[in-house]
């Protein structure tokens, strides 16, 4: 693969117009610079109001930045001369999944919902059919293809929403708190789908969340705080400083907390961990032998 990052954000700023006052603005992003490579699984963490969702909307041309640039696959999306066709191409490259599964469903029947994107692309119906079936299969919802979306559970709806994006064959999927309204089972299912897409299909994932355990599953964690990138690194690196996270109104996953506490107790614990499966290995090594 060539060296150009899939998403290249340079010194991006954005302000919202205040609802009450005339012409007053409130800057929510102050100079974000960020590259996302093809095939990465990035988690964007931050408390409510840290600018996470704004960033997502900027990536998909829903909002326009005040200054700075966003390049997707080398194309500057902030260019005012972009034609409608260019915009459609860009939107095809980066798909969005939102928090509330009910508010992004257009169709009554699951497979028609998945077909909505490809229909907008003007594909022939035989190809739409292929894509819909493949996307349904990828999220494990084939059995629900003819079901009414209203009768599905939250997790199932969210998987249909992901399938709807997948059917547009994007290079990257941006998910804005996709699990925050789901029950534990729904969360698990959606997380599994996200991870599989990334690992097996090489889809670049930008997962906006405020769940530490979900963030720990990503390859890279970016912490946004008040419109600035506060930390950027592997989950192990980012979670290595629980006190700093606390000041950012965030916490660390329980296994990271355990690791820090054990180190304080004097246990010789290898390296930082963020995921239970790594933690158990490190624990066994630290404890030695067992039995």
């Amino acid at each position, binding site marked *: 693969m060539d060296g150009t990052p899939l998403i290249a954000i340079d010194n991006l700023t954005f302000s919202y117009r205040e609802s009450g006052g005339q012409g007053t603005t409130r800057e929510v992003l102050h100079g974000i610079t960020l590259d996302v490579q093809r095939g990465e699984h990035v988690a964007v963490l931050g408390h409510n109001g840290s600018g996470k969702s704004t960033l997502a*909307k900027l990536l998909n041309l829903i909002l326009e930045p005040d200054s700075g640039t966003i390049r997707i696959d080398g194309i500057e999306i902030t260019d005012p001369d972009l034609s409608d066709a260019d915009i459609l191409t860009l939107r095809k490259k980066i798909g969005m999944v939102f928090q509330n599964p009910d508010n992004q*469903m257009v*169709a*009554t029947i699951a497979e*028609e919902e998945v077909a909505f994107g*490809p229909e907008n692309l003007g594909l022939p*119906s035989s190809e739409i059919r292929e894509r819909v079936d493949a996307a349904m299969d990828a999220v494990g919802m084939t059995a629900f293809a003819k079901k009414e979306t209203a009768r599905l559970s939250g997790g199932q709806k969210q998987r249909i929403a992901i399938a709807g994006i997948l059917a*547009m064959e994007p290079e990257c999927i941006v998910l804005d708190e996709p699990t925050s309204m789901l029950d534990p089972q729904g969360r698990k299912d959606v997380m599994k789908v996200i991870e599989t897409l990334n690992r097996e299909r090489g889809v670049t994932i930008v997962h906006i969340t405020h769940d530490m355990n979900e963030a720990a599953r990503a390859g890279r964690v970016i912490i946004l705080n008040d419109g600035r990138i506060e930390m950027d690194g592997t989950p192990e690196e980012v979670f290595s400083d629980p006190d700093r996270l606390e000041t950012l109104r965030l916490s660390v996953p329980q296994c990271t907390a355990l690791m820090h506490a054990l180190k304080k107790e004097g246990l010789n614990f290898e390296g930082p961990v963020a995921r239970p499966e790594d933690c158990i290995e490190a624990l066994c090594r630290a404890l030695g032998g067992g039995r």
Partner: protein
Amino acid sequence: MKSVTMGRYYASNSVIHRLDPRGKIVLAILFIVSTFLCKNVAAFAFLFVGVLVLAAVSRVPLKVILRSLKGVTVVIAFAALLNLFLTSTENAHMLWEIGTWNGRVYGITEEGIIKAVCMVVRIITLIIGTTLLLTYTMTPIELTDGLSRLLWPLLKIRVPVDLFAMMMSIALRFIPTLSEDTERIMNAQKARGANFSEGGLIRKARALVPILIPLFVSSFKRGEELAVAMECRGYHSGDDRTRLNELHWKVRDTVTFILFVALGAAVVCINIFCAGVPFLPAVL
């Protein structure tokens, strides 16, 4: 979970389900016309049998179909009673005379009974036939799709048929969501002691404010988010959108179409040839 049963799609893969939606809309119109063409008992019986055949072919269980009639039992009963008691008693075969009022004799006549039965059969066939064609075997999307395709030529005179179609299908999609919202908000306000059943009309209307405002707020929010989501998925109006299920007029559509025309023609023939059977004016 509560469920709205009337007019719900019944998933199956029958011939009727696979018919072209455009065709089914036209068939429904043909069918409605046929029910109004019926002028005697024989014609009604014939049509009724036709509807039963349609139901059998569609593979929608009778139980489900009958449920759609539940909501209109009052209307059916009212129509039956009206015909039973208000059919002209002149030259009629009186079975049970009730009395005379304003110089008119009231009572139950044989003609009245026949008329009432025919009326009931007419309403039932009408409802079963149209719901079978338009809702049980057709998703709301197919319905709006079919309708918009039928009206597509109007795009030429700048009627935005595609936008109307999209609006319709989104509206349909949000009916269950909004009814759940309403129930949730109502429960939340009831839990704060709101009372929706007591008081006069004005008090009752005012009691709705705590429901309507949150409902508007949430609907606007839903609408806004939906618009963003649709834009992200590349939605744009115009006729360069394609469909997952393109409509193809097939042999089976032509065959069904001919069958329905034949049904209508048969009704007319029965009207003429079985004129001896008690006459019934095409009222209502």
